């Protein structure tokens, strides 16, 4: 069936090329049927890519090792779930997934908006198609998932660290995020090409951007948890280039989601918003390039390949064309209003944007520095953790504080007297929290203490906003307090969903600071019967056991755990030796305290034949708040993403008033 897969991808390439050429011609010449034909080509491209995807999936499930890709990424012994995840575990499969999601998103976005923004859509189609041409060209010519060979008796298997349930969700979510950012990019470029720089491209893409941003955020958190439980080095984020690759577009999209509100409320920052969309999309391409090219040394780079130059060339074209187009359209993007005061909500959003962008570009510099230094000096100089941590504190702490300031400042301008009144409670809460933590010994890390104080400030503003808003809704006629609360959220989902997301960022900050600035670590070689002490825990190494599982030999050291003389049961840590892959992985032991959010984290670093084990043990206070933050983040995002009937009515009314069909 490899022929069918190859043919389907060839059809996708043909359809994408047609959608690009016919779509551009239709938009330029104003031809309606040709424009519809190009739209249909985009939808058909999704169908043909889907056929190719089904062929690959079937080959994976049948263990058809005559497919080179299947033989390279799976084996007979690999459990079915991981066999499915092999679809995106290798380069060719993940490029096919990119293309599948891209054509799918393109078809849906165009269908949803083709009536009410038809003059915009005609230019959006060729932009989508241009991106699809690139990816279909890659999977047809450069990295085909349908290359065949004489079938070997068994496959090479999957990298052990990828044999983890998180790999079923983490990569697809990142891809949904990366590809989702194509939608705002295509609409922004469509708006520039058509000269229709009104609000419609923002309205059409708001939820897509939010969706992509949510998927990227959740995908990264799942990735962090995967690194925590699977990679076995004792942390969850190592500022690895591939991890940074997902963080950068997320930061750019975060900046956009904030600045777009200023455009909607005040008509300002139009150029800035287009620039952020271009940046977010370019960074999502760059992220795929980093992950898949093998150009940087990363624990997450599983491939060395030849697609790098193609990606770099495409990114260069994307940046050059889109920035050139933006410059050409500058007169259309002129803002009708100006910033009235540096003390206003829009100013707070602007500061937030500058800090987010500064953090994003600092990380980008850290990622490309080894490449540049190698090109210039012949030696790759890697910027270490200190570099990233320094800038995270420099830009992250003010960002945290701004999350509390922004919501309490009026649009346009706010007086000093008003600010003093508004901020007295949050400031009081923050100062008391800081003082209490100082007394409790949190002064051992000044940045940590500052982060906690700022977190208390933001939490107080969120509680204040929800409390005062609910009271106001009750006064406006809500029958009950729960009714007032739900009506508050329902009437302004973006604002109050945004506050829930802010609460998740506070949880994230508290978890990161607790587990990194206030953690404990101990290392010791133990013989059976010997013990190790860390914080108020005592661990006694009891035994070493070995068992053979389906695709690996599992060696586990068992430890008894006590805390303050209280027996907490046993914990196991060890290693898995994968026979087919001929690799060994760390299998860490984690004991979580649901009440305090603290983890006891044990790594069996080295297991000797005589049964002695070199253990590395961490106590990570509050680390589980990081994962809890993911759930709160998802809740906030869902509230914000949920369709707003009143907004839909307002948009329908607006389109009706200019005589355009209201159906979206």
């Amino acid at each position, binding site marked *: 069936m490899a022929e069918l897969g190859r043919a389907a991808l060839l059809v996708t390439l043909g359809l994408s090329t047609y959608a690009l050429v016919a779509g551009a011609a239709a938009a330029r010449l104003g031809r*309606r049927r040709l424009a519809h034909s190009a739209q249909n080509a985009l939808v058909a491209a999704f169908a043909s890519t889907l056929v190719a995807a089904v062929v690959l999936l079937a080959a994976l499930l049948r263990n058809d090792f005559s497919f080179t890709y299947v033989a390279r990424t799976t084996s007979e012994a690999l459990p079915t779930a991981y066999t499915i995840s092999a679809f995106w575990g290798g380069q060719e499969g993940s490029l096919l997934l990119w293309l599948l999601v891209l054509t799918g998103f393109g078809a849906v976005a165009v269908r949803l908006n083709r009536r009410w923004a038809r003059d915009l859509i005609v230019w959006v189609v060729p932009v989508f198609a241009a991106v699809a041409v690139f990816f279909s060209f890659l999977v047809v010519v450069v990295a085909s998932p349908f290359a065949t060979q004489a079938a070997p008796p068994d496959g090479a298997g999957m990298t052990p660290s990828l044999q983890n349930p998180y790999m079923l969700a983490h990569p697809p979510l990142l891809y949904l995020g990366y590809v989702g950012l194509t939608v705002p990019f295509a609409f922004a470029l469509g708006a520039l090409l058509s000269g229709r720089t009104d609000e419609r491209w923002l309205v059409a893409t708001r939820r897509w951007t939010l969706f992509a941003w949510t998927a990227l955020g959740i995908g990264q958190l799942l990735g962090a948890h995967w690194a925590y439980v699977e990679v076995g080095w004792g942390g969850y984020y190592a500022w690895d280039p591939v991890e940074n690759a997902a963080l950068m577009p997320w930061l750019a999209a975060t900046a956009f989601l904030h600045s777009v509100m200023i455009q909607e409320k005040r008509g300002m920052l139009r150029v800035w918003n287009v620039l952020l969309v271009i940046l977010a999309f370019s960074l999502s391409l760059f992220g795929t390039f980093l992950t898949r090219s093998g150009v940087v040394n990363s624990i997450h780079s599983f491939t060395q390949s030849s697609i790098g130059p193609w990606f770099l060339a495409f990114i260069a074209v994307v940046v050059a064309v889109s920035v050139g187009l933006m410059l050409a359209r500058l007169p259309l993007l002129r803002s009708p209003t100006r910033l009235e005061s540096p003390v206003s909500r829009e100013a707070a959003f602007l500061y937030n944007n500058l800090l987010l962008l500064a953090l994003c570009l600092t990380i980008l510099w850290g990622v490309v520095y080894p490449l540049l230094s190698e090109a210039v000096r012949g030696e790759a100089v890697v910027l270490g953790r200190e570099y990233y941590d320094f800038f995270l504190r420099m830009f992250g702490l003010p960002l945290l504080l701004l999350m509390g300031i922004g919501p309490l400042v009026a649009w346009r301008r706010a007086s000093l007297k008003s600010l003093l009144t508004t901020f007295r409670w949050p400031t009081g809460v923050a100062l008391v929290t800081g003082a209490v933590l100082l007394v409790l010994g949190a002064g051992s890390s000044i940045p940590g203490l500052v982060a906690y104080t700022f977190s208390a400030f933001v939490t107080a503003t969120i509680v204040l906003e929800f409390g005062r808003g609910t009271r106001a809704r009750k006064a406006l006629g809500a029958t009950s307090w729960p009714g007032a609360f739900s009506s508050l959220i329902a009437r302004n989902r973006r604002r109050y969903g945004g506050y829930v997301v802010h609460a998740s960022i506070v949880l994230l900050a508290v978890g990161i600071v607790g587990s990194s600035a206030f953690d404990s670590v101990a290392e010791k070689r133990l013989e059976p019967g010997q013990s190790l002490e860390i914080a108020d825990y005592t661990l006694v190494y009891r035994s070493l056991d070995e068992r053979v599982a389906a695709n690996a030999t599992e060696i586990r050291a068992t430890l008894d755990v006590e805390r303050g003389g209280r027996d907490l049961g046993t914990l196991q840590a060890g290693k898995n030796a994968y026979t087919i892959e001929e690799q060994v992985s760390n299998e860490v032991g984690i004991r979580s305290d649901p009440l305090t959010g603290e983890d006891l984290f044990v790594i069996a670093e080295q297991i000797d034949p005589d049964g002695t084990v070199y253990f590395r043990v961490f106590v990570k206070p509050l680390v589980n708040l990081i994962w809890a933050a993911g759930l709160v983040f998802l809740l906030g995002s869902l509230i914000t993403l949920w369709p707003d009937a009143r907004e839909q009515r307002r948009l329908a009314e607006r389109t009706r008033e200019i005589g355009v069909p209201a159906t979206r």
Partner: protein
Amino acid sequence: MTLALLFAALLAIGCVVAVALPFLREPEPESDDLDELDEPERRRLALLEARDRALASLRELEFDHRTGTVSDEDYRALVGSLRRDAARSLQALEREGSIRSTEMPMNEERPAGERIS
């Protein structure tokens, strides 16, 4: 092999039909022009956006004042200019409407495919 090629051929034919569909449905349309917003419509859209922005800002200010996020003093300083913005955008829309009504009846939707400019 043969079955795969047959599927591939069917897929290709299906895609060609989908792409050709707009031309097959309307071999000789009255007009093949794109339905684009003309200049007055674009002007009106900009005014409608400005109106919605002004009204939304006013609503948000009223609510923020009610919750106490915006003080009485700031409210008094801001509400006047916001009301003026809203009034200006409504007046501009009215003016635009009266100009339009001399050119074409209000709320008349153009048939798809008909270009005005």
